[in-house]
């Protein structure tokens, strides 16, 4: 278990001090795939570097199974880094060494004999699906393959925790998907806790079970991925979860009666709800905006409808929609009309 307690980090720059992290509190349980998401500059990278003390926190503590990492000696910290390993956006392989040599580097650094290390290295290459690349050099590999080698290297010392710093940000969507699959496999099969730093909601959606949203160095929201998706509270979260939602501000210029349907993780989005409303209630609503996605077989998202006719039709539509399971229906205030008054 990793506990981040009252963590703050400030840097002194030429423009004065910058608070990169402000009083961050998080608990990451064993076996979690924990997402930390935020826009660039939100402090994600600093946060992940505090977890393995590549950055020393200005205030606060990092507890790994109750042990305060900030109080460790350099030697003890190097030991801890065998159990908290890291992969990076740029893969960071040694370009002058073969893949096998890259993978076994952490073992060789900790004094494991060459033959034993190489045996383990080949097993690791097997795990990441590249057993035939032992003698290839990183430059001969694609980005996705290089990240696999980096993952094998990170697994070499049998870590408890794997830190992923934007590990898929340099990869195309298909390769991203494959790497995320591998990370999920590692989490399940080897029981390694994974902390994923990313700016892509899709990454969190695909593999994480919990997520923290970081904005300007502070955690603005934290919880189960499904819950955060269903009901994003903070504005930063809404912007990340539904980047399209911002568009609805423009749509609100449209006069008329608008209803927002929010799907809270039920099967509702699979049903032809709008079509049924047209046929059964006789209300032909037009869709002004929508963003839905499924997380673990459940539907999340929203649809913004314009309801034709008068208040009666609006009430009828709202009543009809409220009967559907797992949806929240709200009538949008007509800002345009309000301003006109």
């Amino acid at each position, binding site marked *: 278990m990793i506990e981040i307690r009252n963590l703050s980090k400030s840097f002194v720059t030429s423009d004065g001090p910058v608070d990169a992290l402000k009083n961050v509190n998080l608990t990451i349980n064993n076996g979690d795939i924990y997402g930390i998401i935020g826009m660039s500059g939100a402090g994600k990278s600093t946060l992940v570097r505090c977890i*393995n003390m*590549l950055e020393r926190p200005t205030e606060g503590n990092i507890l790994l199974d109750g042990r305060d990492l900030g109080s460790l000696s350099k030697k003890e*910290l*190097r*030991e*801890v*880094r*065998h159990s908290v*390993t*890291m992969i*990076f956006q*740029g893969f*960071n392989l*040694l*370009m*002058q*060494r073969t893949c096998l040599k890259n993978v076994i*580097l*952490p073992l*060789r*650094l*900790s004094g494991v004999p060459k033959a034993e290390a190489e045996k383990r290295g080949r097993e690791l290459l097997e795990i990441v699906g590249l057993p035939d690349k032992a003698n290839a*050099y*990183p*430059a*001969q590999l694609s980005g996705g393959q290089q990240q696999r080698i980096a993952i094998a*290297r990170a697994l070499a*010392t049998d870590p408890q925790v794997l830190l992923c710093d934007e590990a898929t940000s340099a990869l195309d969507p298909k390769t991203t998907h494959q790497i995320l699959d591998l990370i999920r496999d590692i989490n399940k099969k080897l029981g390694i806790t994974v902390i994923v730093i990313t700016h892509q909601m899709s990454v969190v959606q695909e593999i994480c079970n919990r997520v923290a949203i970081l904005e300007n160095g502070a955690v603005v929201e934290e919880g189960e991925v499904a819950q955060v998706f269903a009901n994003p509270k903070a504005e930063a979260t809404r912007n990340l979860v539904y980047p399209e939602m911002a568009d609805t501000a423009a749509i609100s210029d449209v006069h008329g009666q608008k209803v927002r349907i929010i799907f809270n993780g039920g099967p509702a989005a699979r049903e032809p709800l709008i079509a049924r409303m047209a046929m059964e209630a006789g209300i032909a609503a037009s869709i002004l905006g929508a963003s839905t996605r499924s997380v673990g077989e459940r539907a999340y998202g929203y649809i913004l409808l314009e309801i034709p006719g008068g208040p009666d039709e609006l009430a009828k539509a709202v009543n009809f929609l409220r009967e559907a399971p797992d949806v929240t229906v709200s009538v949008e205030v007509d800002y345009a009309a309000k301003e006109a008054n």
Partner: protein
Amino acid sequence: MNLQNAFTPEKLQEAWEIFCRDFPLALWDTLYVTIVSTFFAIVIGLPLGMILVAGEEKGIRPLPKWLMKTLNVVINLLRSIPFLILIVMVIPLTRMIVGTSVGTVASIVPLVVAAFPFVARLVEGSLREISPNIIETAQSMGATPMQILLHVMLPESVPSLISNFTLAITTIMGYTAMSGAIGGGGLGKIAIMIGYNRYKYAVLYMAVIVLVILVQIFQSIGTKLAIKCDKRLKH
């Protein structure tokens, strides 16, 4: 320098005889002095270059500021003394190490003193090419500063180091010609003593041509080796 009668058939004939008689030994002296000097310059300069990079304020193993400042000043100082003057200045040191201050072996001492600061700067440059991300990665694995230097930074900069050592060896070869002026053997001595002082300009030109060829050979070998070693290039 009057070149009008320098290349008559008789002069060329005479130069050829000198070439056959004196050049094999001179060539050997030049190669010997160059290689031994380069070797010692690297032995001293390589660790110094590593210290320059590792020991700076934001390096992997920061050293006291005064020490780094002193080191930098000493290196800059040695780099700024003209070689001919340096030769004279290190005579006491040469005597202490070699026992004499004249001759081929004695010329190695000033060459090393002149070249090691140069090599230290070259090594510094090579090591600075290593991406900070790679160093951070090594730190995240729990590598000690020494391990980062020996297992990550040095191996990663091998192609660049080879290029720079090639530069060092060709430069040092140029310096050996100068040390020929004060009693060191080699092609430089022949060019000055026989070619210039005794007006046998054909000999002077021959010595220069051999030096040029030597530099070309070292440079080509070095460049080829650096490319061959560089695994970043797909081949």
